[in-house]
Structures are given as structure tokens and as C-alpha cells.
């Protein structure tokens, strides 16, 4: 328990305060926002974005970026839905296929970026298009309805209020945070993002680490696709448009540096929650979709400005 307390005390304290303040403000202004139903609804919406943000956090800490997560998620979702309905594959095989689809995309990103020294921005921009195209091909450009086949994953358990997906997402956040802070791999991730050449000259090959991080981000995007289908009971080839930007926003709100070398998975998760609460709260307050976007964008900019200001002040002190 002290470990969790310590994790929260670090960078994340400010985020928890912001999150609590948001909930409070919406609670006071709409009356019924702070209720079990509202909060559980929000919780059941976040697993897909959480998975994408966890992968994005690791990629960004190494100094890279993954723009393909939204398309990869859609592609994995398409494979899952078509495998279950048209191809009649058993559920475990279909799930494995969706995850593998994500992993292959991630491996492709990592291998090309590392082997040919292409900036990850470019490679993943290409993959964004490729995976989106594949999603259309697999679904024949139509939504695929899967029905209740994935309710065990996506539907909230009546006795708990949240779905299996939420539990998996939470576990993933904790495991990824441990991977980052408690393993040699995590240390390499941070070191590479801090000074890649120094890592290389210290006798550590940065390339396998970078490839593994992209592969992991791909797997997580694949699982996000599973959660997406499970939540909506159908796969839409247009799913996850702009998901990469929401994930990047969550990571940045969570205090990671886009320059690499610094970041926290728990912070990114809090970033996801802040975005989700903001969206739900604004909707309940009656804000229109355009207005929601304006406010969300402003919050992202404000979060980064405040974070940088706080950091500089701490550096001076």
C-alpha cells in the first residue's frame, strides 16, 4: 500500500487534485454528476483509450511517437469482428488474431524506424494509413455487428458495475508502471529517451528496446480494438479516428516529456481520466460537441503550460 501511496505522491499528485476539482465543479454545476451511475459510465468508456495511452507513454519516453494507434485499433477490431462472424472462429482464436494484428503493426513500426533510421513520426504516419486501409478491406467498408459475443469483456458485471475491460486496463496500467520503474527494460527506456548515444556508447544496444516498445504499443492498440468491439458490440472501420491525438494528449497531461526521458504510466492514466471526466461533464452540463472540443483543447494547453511552469520553479528551488 505504501508503494501505491509513493507512486501517487510523485508527479501525479497535481493531476489527482485537478481530477478531483473537475469532478467537484461538474458535481456542483449539474447536481447529478457525482453519482454511481455517471462515474461507472465514465469508467466503462475509458479502457480503449487507456490501453493506447499506456503504449504511447512508453514510446514517448524513448523519444519516439506512435501515430498509428487509432488505425491499428480499428484494424484489430475489424479482424476480431469478421473472425467471429464471417469466419466463425472460436473466441480465443479471434482474440489472439486481433492482438497479433496489433503486435505485427507495432513490430513493423519498430523495425522500420530502427533498421532504416526513419523518424517514428514518419513510419507510424504510414502505418496509420496502411492499418486504416486494411480495416476497410477486412470489413468491406461496413460496420460489423457482433452482438453479445463479447459481453464477458465489454459489459459491466452487475455486482461490480464495471466490465472486465476496465479491470484489465487498470491491471495494465499498474504492470506497465512496474515495467517502467522496476525492471532493467524500463531503465533502458528512460535512458534511451534521455541520451540515446550515451546509452549506445555505454555498451547497450538501444535497438531491441526500441523495437520492443513499439511492439508493445501495437499489442496494446490491438487489445484496445478488442475492448472497443466489446463495448459497442460492433466493429466500425472508422473507429478510433483521432485516438492517437487523445492518447498523446493524455500522456502530455500526465506529465511526460515529448522530448523523451521522462514520464509516468500512472500519470498518463490520470490524463485519460481527466479527458474522460471533462467530456462527460461537459455533455451533462449541456455543452454542444463543438464547445466540448474547444474546452478540451484549452485544458490540454493549460495543463502543459502549468506543468512546465511548476517544473521550472522546482528546478530553481
Amino acid at each position, binding site marked *: 500500500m505504501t508503494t501505491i501511496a509513493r507512486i501517487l505522491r510523485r508527479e501525479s499528485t497535481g493531476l489527482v487534485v485537478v481530477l478531483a476539482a473537475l469532478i467537484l465543479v461538474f458535481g456542483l454545476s449539474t447536481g447529478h454528476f457525482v453519482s454511481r451511475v455517471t462515474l461507472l459510465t465514465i469508467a466503462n468508456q475509458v479502457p480503449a483509450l487507456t490501453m493506447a495511452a499506456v503504449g504511447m507513454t512508453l514510446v514517448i519516453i524513448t523519444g519516439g511517437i506512435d501515430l498509428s494507434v487509432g488505425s491499428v485499433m480499428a484494424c484489430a477490431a475489424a479482424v476480431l469482428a469478421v473472425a467471429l462472424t464471417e469466419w466463425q472462429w472460436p473466441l480465443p482464436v479471434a482474440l489472439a488474431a486481433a492482438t497479433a494484428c496489433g503486435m505485427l503493426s507495432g513490430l513493423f513500426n519498430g523495425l522500420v524506424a530502427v533498421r532504416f533510421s526513419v523518424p517514428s513520426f514518419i513510419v507510424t504516419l504510414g502505418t496509420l494509413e496502411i492499418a486504416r486501409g486494411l480495416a476497410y478491406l477486412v470489413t468491406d467498408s461496413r460496420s460489423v455487428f457482433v452482438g453479445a459475443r463479447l459481453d464477458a469483456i465489454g459489459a459491466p458485471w452487475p455486482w461490480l458495475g464495471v466490465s472486465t475491460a476496465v479491470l484489465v486496463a487498470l491491471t495494465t496500467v499498474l504492470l506497465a508502471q512496474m515495467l517502467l*520503474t*522496476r*525492471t*532493467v*527494460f*524500463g*531503465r*533502458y527506456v*528512460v*535512458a534511451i529517451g*534521455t*541520451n540515446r*548515444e*550515451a*546509452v*549506445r*556508447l*555505454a*555498451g*547497450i*544496444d538501444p535497438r531491441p528496446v526500441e523495437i520492443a516498445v513499439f511492439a508493445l504499443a501495437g499489442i496494446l492498440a490491438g487489445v484496445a480494438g478488442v475492448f472497443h468491439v466489446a463495448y459497442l458490440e460492433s466493429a466500425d472501420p472508422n473507429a478510433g479516428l483521432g485516438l492517437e491525438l487523445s492518447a498523446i494528449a493524455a500522456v502530455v497531461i500526465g506529465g511526460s516529456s515529448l522530448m523523451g*526521458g*521522462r514520464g509516468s504510466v500512472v500519470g498518463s492514466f490520470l490524463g485519460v481520466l481527466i479527458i474522460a471526466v471533462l467530456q462527460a461533464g461537459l455533455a451533462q452540463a449541456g455543452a454542444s460537441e463543438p464547445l466540448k472540443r474547444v474546452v478540451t483543447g484549452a485544458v490540454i494547453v493549460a495543463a502543459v503550460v502549468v506543468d512546465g511552469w511548476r517544473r521550472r520553479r522546482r528546478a530553481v528551488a
Partner: protein
Amino acid sequence: MDGNAVATLEVRDVHKAYAAPVLSGVDLDVRAGEIHALVGANGAGKSTLTRIVTGLLSPDRATMRLGGVPYHPASRRQAEDLGVRLVPQEAPAITTLSVAEQMFLGRLPHRGGIVARRRLHEQASSALVRLGLGHIDPTSPVAALGVGQRQLLAIAAALAGECRVLILDEPTAALGHADAERLLHHLRDLRSAGMAILYISHRLDEILAIGDRVTVLRDGRVVEARAVADTTRDRLVAAMVPPAVPAAPSVPAGSVAATVARDRPPDTSEHERRVALRVSRLSHGTAVRDVSLSVDAGEIVGLYGLVGAGRTELLRAIYGADPHDAGDVRRADGPPLSIRSPMDAVRAGIGLIPEDRAAHALLGSLPVRSNVLLSSLGRLARWRWFVDTGRETSAATTALAPLDVRCRSIEQPVGELSGGNQQKVVVARWLLRDSPVLLVDEPTRGVDVGARAAIHAELRALAGAGRALLVASSELDELTTLCDRIVVMARGRVTGTFTRGAWRDVDLQAAAFAPQDGDVLAAAR
């Protein structure tokens, strides 16, 4: 100096000091229609002097006159407007620009902000023709030119503007034989046309071939200023070397060696010496050519050479940081190691302490502990994967203990430490990794005098504990205090190997200035 020749640039009594004095009362005259050579070993003050003359640096004290008028440039721009132009050793080139754009960068002819292309190309063409580069098309991209031609381009660009005093810093360093010949030929023409040229070079033969007068700097003072006709290569080398300090070279060789042997811990006595690192015929492009050397366990071997001699490149090639194209590296008397990357080198027990710590060794924003542990994380982990914080802390503390690193705690970001302490953190990394061979590049660059002594003591202790050290430095006195042997390089090749007690500074400098095949020896003056 003869009174009838008027100096175009007259520099008197220049003083400049940082922590220690760099220039102490330097005088220099450059006359119209002469090539005045400026020579000196590394750190003699040549660069500082040129920076002062070209307005890049303000002196503590100086009286300068240009064409008889007081001259105190506040900026490079101002110096150039007055006609004093410097072509640096490696003139920066923006390869995506055209030749003409590169030449006139910062003063492109324009009409209302739109570049006047015709005028630009005309001006560029005539400037190129003046230096015999008429064959270069001013519209072609800079990227299409070789390094040598870019150097000539920079000179042509300098001459295209107002130019009364042309300062050339190692202009032939990047040039092949033919290009160098051509450049010297054009410099003679410029001299005949009345240009005042200050020519800085390590290549003494060139100076003897085209210089009119020569000024030798040593430790920030002019130690020799005379007509080139009245000097010789040996005389110039001798002038660059500090006079023998009574303690070191004048004592009979045997007794010095004996003193050194006594200084060493007993476990590295002569009969136990064995080779730890053997480099055979290693080459990397033109920077490292056919280098062979060996370092014994418990021995410190120095690597001396002028700037650009290939010291850093050799260390990097041994370490696998840059691929080598020929030759091999062995540990002890083992088989050739195929070192293709630093990972191979580290696995073979070789560590590198690079010159540019911030860029090549340190994770600046991370704590001291992470920096010390970096190369040993896998070894200290539980089941190879899981960080064992307790074990890491004790390992890092143990590695740092003998080094007396000044930091608040091992959690302090390494970027906040002083240069000397940062250096020690890198040393601790390899102590922890237990690397028997260490390649050290400029161990005391950018550290203060106290830290310098501490680092030297530390390097001796490392050798005393049986490690083999190959230490590259541009400072000869650092190596003569530290090393058992010194290998001297010049332009990528080994030009001499000297053993403690049997070396004289003159010989070491002579090796560093050694001429080579392909040098411009055409002494037709």
C-alpha cells in the same frame, strides 16, 4: 623588423586570461604583400589570438591598428566590414544551398527582399574565377562539392567581400595533395596582389615553402618571430617546446624510470607485465591509417597528436563506436575480436570515457546512480530483469567510494555536478562494470586544476590496480606526467612511440609535426 615596411595589421601587447592567462603580451604584424605564418603546439593561444583579431572575442588588453588606424572590432561583422576575414579550419557549409548562396550568405544581393539571382551569380562567378575555381558552377549545390573544394569556396567567399587581411586557419588540413598545391599557388598570387595573409598551420613544410615571416607562439607568448628564410624545421619545433624543466628530461634516463617504477604498486613489476590490448593495423577512412599499438595491464599509454591527428577517431574505432575498415583488435593474446559496436567492446572488457561527456556519456537529467549503473544494470538485476534497488544502491556507492565525488546524494541529477565530478561518475561506471581496458579521451578537458590532479591520481590508481589505460590528450604535459609510454600520431598515422625516461619534449613535438607522403614539399618560392 625593418622600418620601411608598413604593417596592414598591427597587434601589440595582447593579453587575455580566463582562469589562467592564455595570451600574455603577444605582438604580431601582418604586412601587405606577405604571408605571415603563425605556428604553435596545441593550446599555445593561436585560436584565441585569431578570435580576438576577428572580433569574436574581446581581449583583456590590446592595442591593434589596421592600416594605421586604431582597430578594435566589437563583432565579427565589424571586423569583416573593415576587411579582416577569417576562414576557419572547417568552414561550415549548408549543403542544401547553391554555391553562390553559400558564398554570399548573410549579404545576398536583393531587391526588396527578393534575391537578385543574376547579380548573385555574376558576383559569385567572378569571385570563383579570381581563385582559379572558374570550373565551379555557382548554381550547383554545395553538396556536390568535396570537402577540399568547400574549403576553397570559403576562401573565395572571403575574398569576394572587402578583404585586406585574410586569416587562414589550417586551410590545407582537409585538402588532398593537388588541391593544397593549387591553394598555395593562389595564395602566392594574392600575396603578389598586395594582400596581407596570416597563415596558421601545423604543416611546417608548407610554411617553409610559402611563408615570408613566421611567429611561434608558446603558452601565450611569442617565442620566436623571424623571416622564414632564416629558420629551419628543427628550429621551429624546438621553439614550440618548453625549455627543459630541471626535474624531468635533464636527469639521466635510467634514474627517472627507476623513480617511476618505485611509484607503482609492487604487483605490476616488470616480469608480470602482459599485454592487455593489442591493436593491429587499424584503419578508419583517412582519419585512422594503419595504426598498431599495444597496452600492457597496469600500464598507461598516452596518445598525443595535434588537433585533427586522429586521436579521438582511433579510440572510437577501437571501441566500435565507428566501424573500422581494416585491421583488428585483440585482448591479451587472444584471437582478433570482431568489434562492430560498443556492445562488442564492452563485452570484451573495454570501456570508453569520451571527451564530450554531456553528449556521449551522461544521462544529464537522471541521477548519479542511474549514470553509474547504466552499463551494469543487467548484472545487478534479480533474474536478469527486475531491479534490485538495495543491491544497486550498494553497488553504486561502492563504485563511487574511492573517487570522492562531490554530490548531495546519489539521487542528484548528474547534470548539476561540476565537470570533474561528472568525469568521476563515468569512471565509476567502468569500475562497476569491471572493465580491464579503459580508453580515455581528454580526461581533464573542462575541469579545474584541483579536479585535474584528482583525476590523474585516479587514473594512476586504475593502472596500479592492473587496468590497461590508453589516454588521448592534446596536452603534452598531461601525458608526460601521466604515462609510461606515449604514442604520437600525425594525420591518422603513428609517427613515434616513446618510453618514459627516453623521451624529450622536442622529439615528441617533432613526431607530432612529422611530415608525410603527399605533403606539399615543393619549396619553389
